[in-house]
C-alpha cells in the first residue's frame, strides 16, 4: 500500500508541485487502492482508469512545461454519480439511466477538470439521491469502512466511503436534505453543503431543484475548503446561481486551524440537543461543545421552535418537486425504454419504462409528491409546507441576530446496520432530522468529526447564514484542531 493514499489533498498537491511525486504516481496509487478494497467497500459505480491516468499525465506535462497550476492540480477526486460527465457513465444510482453516457460535462466537473484535478470515477448513491444509507441504489449498497456491516450514510455514501477507505482524498457530493453531511458524519469525514446557489446545478441530475446543492467532501476541513473554492462561484448556466464571489473559505479554514475562537458566538439548537438523538451521539456532541468553549467561543442555547416541522415540510416539498422533475424520464430522449413492441401506445410504454426503471423509494416519492400537489390536497400539504418553510427561515434569521453560527449533532444516530431501516421508509427519513432545516433555509452547513460513540464516528454540524460559508469553515477547522482526524480500522 502506497503511503500516498493516506495523505491529505493539501499534502498531495504540495508533493506534486514540488516535484517529489507525479500526478500519475498519485493517481496510480489510488487506482491500486480501489482495486484492493472496493470489492468490499463498493464505493464506486464506475472507475475511469484510462481517463484518470490521461488527466494525470496532462497535469505532469503542463507542470514540466513550466505552467503555473492551481492549488489542487494533480489531486484525485471521486464524483458522485449525480453529476454528468461527458462520455463517462452517469446513472444517478438508477436502472433508468443504466449505460447512459452524457454528451456534456456538468459545471462542477468542468471546473474540476480545469483545475487539474484527476477524476477517478463515479461514486455510488441512493437512487436519485433519495435515501440516507445508499441501500436504495439500484446497483447494491456501499459499505461503511468503519464496519462493513453498517451503512455509510446517504445519499452520498459512495463519496464518503471512498474518503474513509483512502480510495480518494477528495470527493464531490450533493445535498438536498443532508446527503453530504450525514454520510460525512457516519464515516468520520468532512462534508460541506454550500449556500444554495453558491455552487452550480448545471448538469446535476435534478431531484428537488429548490434544495439540491452540490458540495465538497474531504478528510480535512482545509481540503474541503480548497475544493469548495474550486467548484464554487457564479455560473451563468444556472439561473439560481448567486452572482457573487465565493466567501474566502480557505482563509477561514486556516484561521480556524489556529484554534482560536475568541469573539465567536455559537448557538446550540435547543430542539436538536435533547430528545431524538442516541445517548452516545449526545455525549460526543457535549464534549465537542466543551472543547469549543475552551477555544474561546461563547456558547448559548437558541430555540428554533419550527425546526421540529422541518422534516414533515421537507417530505412534502422535496417529493412534490421530484414528481415534477422526474417526469423527464419518459423513455424517449435518454435511458431505458421498456415494452416498446410496436403495438403499445406511448403512454403504456412510458408507464412500463418508469415501473421497470425506478426503484421503490423513488416511486414512493413520486406518488407522494403527486398526492401533495393534487387539487384538493395542495393547500393542506404543499401550500402549508411552503408556509412552514418561511417560518423555519425566520427561525434562522432570528437566531443569526443572536449568534454567529448554530451547532447541533449532524445526525441523530451513528452508522446503523444494513437493513435496519429499509422496511420502514419513515425511520430512514429520521436520519436527516437535523440537516434538513438548513436546506429549507438555503444556508450553508458542514459536518466535522467530533468523536466516537461505541467505536463509530459522530459528526458535529455547523450552520451559518446564507453566503457566510466562511464562518462554518472557521468553526469546523477549530474543532478539528482539537479532535483531529478519525482513522478507521484497517480494511
Amino acid at each position, binding site marked *: 500500500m502506497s503511503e500516498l493514499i493516506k495523505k491529505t489533498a493539501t499534502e498531495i498537491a504540495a508533493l506534486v508541485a514540488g516535484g517529489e511525486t507525479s500526478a500519475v504516481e498519485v493517481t496510480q496509487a489510488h487506482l491500486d487502492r480501489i482495486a484492493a478494497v472496493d470489492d468490499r467497500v463498493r464505493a464506486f459505480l464506475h472507475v475511469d482508469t484510462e481517463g484518470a491516468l490521461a488527466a494525470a499525465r496532462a497535469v505532469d506535462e503542463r507542470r514540466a512545461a513550466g505552467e503555473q497550476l492551481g492549488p489542487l492540480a494533480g489531486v484525485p477526486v471521486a464524483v458522485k454519480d449525480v453529476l454528468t460527465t461527458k462520455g463517462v457513465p452517469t446513472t444517478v444510482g438508477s436502472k433508468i439511466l443504466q449505460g*447512459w*453516457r*452524457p*454528451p*456534456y460535462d456538468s459545471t462542477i466537473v468542468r471546473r474540476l477538470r480545469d483545475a487539474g484535478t484527476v477524476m477517478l470515477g463515479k461514486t455510488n448513491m441512493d437512487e436519485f439521491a433519495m435515501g440516507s444509507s445508499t441501500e436504495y441504489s439500484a446497483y447494491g449498497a456501499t459499505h461503511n469502512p468503519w464496519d462493513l456491516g453498517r451503512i455509510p450514510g446517504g445519499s452520498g455514501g459512495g463519496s464518503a466511503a471512498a474518503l474513509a477507505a483512502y480510495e480518494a482524498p477528495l470527493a464531490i457530493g450533493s445535498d438536498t436534505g443532508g446527503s453530504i453531511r450525514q454520510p460525512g458524519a457516519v464515516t468520520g469525514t468532512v462534508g460541506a453543503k454550500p449556500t444554495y446557489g453558491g455552487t452550480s446545478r448545471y448538469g446535476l441530475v435534478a431531484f428537488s431543484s*429548490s434544495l439540491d446543492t452540490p458540495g465538497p467532501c474531504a478528510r480535512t476541513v482545509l481540503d474541503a475548503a480548497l475544493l469548495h473554492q474550486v467548484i464554487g462561484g457564479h455560473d451563468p448556466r444556472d*439561473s*439560481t446561481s*448567486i452572482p457573487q464571489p465565493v466567501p474566502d473559505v480557505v482563509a477561514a479554514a486556516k484561521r480556524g486551524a489556529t484554534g482560536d475562537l475568541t469573539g465567536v458566538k455559537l448557538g446550540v439548537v435547543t430542539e436538536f440537543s435533547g430528545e431524538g438523538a442516541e445517548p452516545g451521539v449526545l455525549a460526543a456532541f457535549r464534549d465537542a461543545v466543551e472543547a469549543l468553549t475552551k477555544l474561546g467561543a461563547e456558547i448559548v442555547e437558541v430555540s428554533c421552535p419550527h425546526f421540529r*416541522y422541518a422534516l*414533515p*415540510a421537507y*417530505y*412534502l416539498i422535496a417529493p412534490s418537486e421530484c*414528481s415534477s422533475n422526474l*417526469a423527464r424520464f419518459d*423513455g*424517449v*430522449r*435518454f*435511458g431505458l*425504454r421498456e415494452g*416498446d413492441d410496436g403495438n*403499445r401506445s*406511448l403512454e*403504456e*410504454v*412510458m*408507464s*412500463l419504462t*418508469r*415501473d421497470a426503471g*425506478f426503484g*421503490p423509494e423513488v*416511486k*414512493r416519492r413520486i*406518488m*407522494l409528491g*403527486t*398526492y401533495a400537489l393534487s387539487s384538493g390536497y395542495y393547500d*393542506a*400539504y404543499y*401550500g*402549508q*409546507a*411552503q*408556509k*412552514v*418553510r*418561511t*417560518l423555519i*427561515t425566520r427561525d434562522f434569521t432570528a437566531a443569526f441576530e443572536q449568534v454567529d453560527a448554530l451547532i447541533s449533532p449532524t445526525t441523530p444516530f451513528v452508522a446503523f446496520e444494513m437493513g435496519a431501516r429499509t422496511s*420502514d*421508509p*419513515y425511520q430512514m*427519513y429520521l436520519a436527516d432530522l437535523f440537516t434538513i432545516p438548513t436546506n*429549507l*433555509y*438555503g*444556508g450553508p452547513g458542514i459536518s466535522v468529526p467530533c468523536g466516537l460513540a461505541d467505536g463509530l464516528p459522530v459528526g458535529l454540524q455547523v450552520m451559518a447564514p446564507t453566503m457566510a460559508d466562511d464562518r462554518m469553515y472557521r468553526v469546523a477547522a477549530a474543532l478539528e484542531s482539537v479532535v483531529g482526524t478519525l482513522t478507521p480500522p484497517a480494511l
Partner: protein
Amino acid sequence: MAAISREEVAHLARLSRLAVTEEELDTFAGQLDVILQAVAQVGEVAAADIPPTSHSVPLTNVLREDVVVPGLTPAEALSGAPDAEEQRFRVPRILDEDVAS
C-alpha cells in the same frame, strides 16, 4: 383511519405513469399511509397569514445577450436515445389506430 386508500394509491400510480403491480400497490398503500400521517403534522402550525417560500434565493428573470453559442450536434443530442430516426427521437404511437387512420 387510513390517510390514503389502496384505490387512491392506484390512481396516483396512473397519474405518475407508473405501471405498478397489485403486490406493489399493497406495499405502497401501507407505507404512504404512514408517511402521510407523519407529514400531516405541518397542519399543526398556525400559518394562515404566513407567505409561502418556494425558493431561498429571491428569483427574478435572468437574461443574457441573444447570441448564438455552440450547442450539441444532432448526433450528440440523440446519443442517449432509446430509438432515433432521421435525426429525430422515435417514439411509440401517440394516437389510437382508429383516430390516426
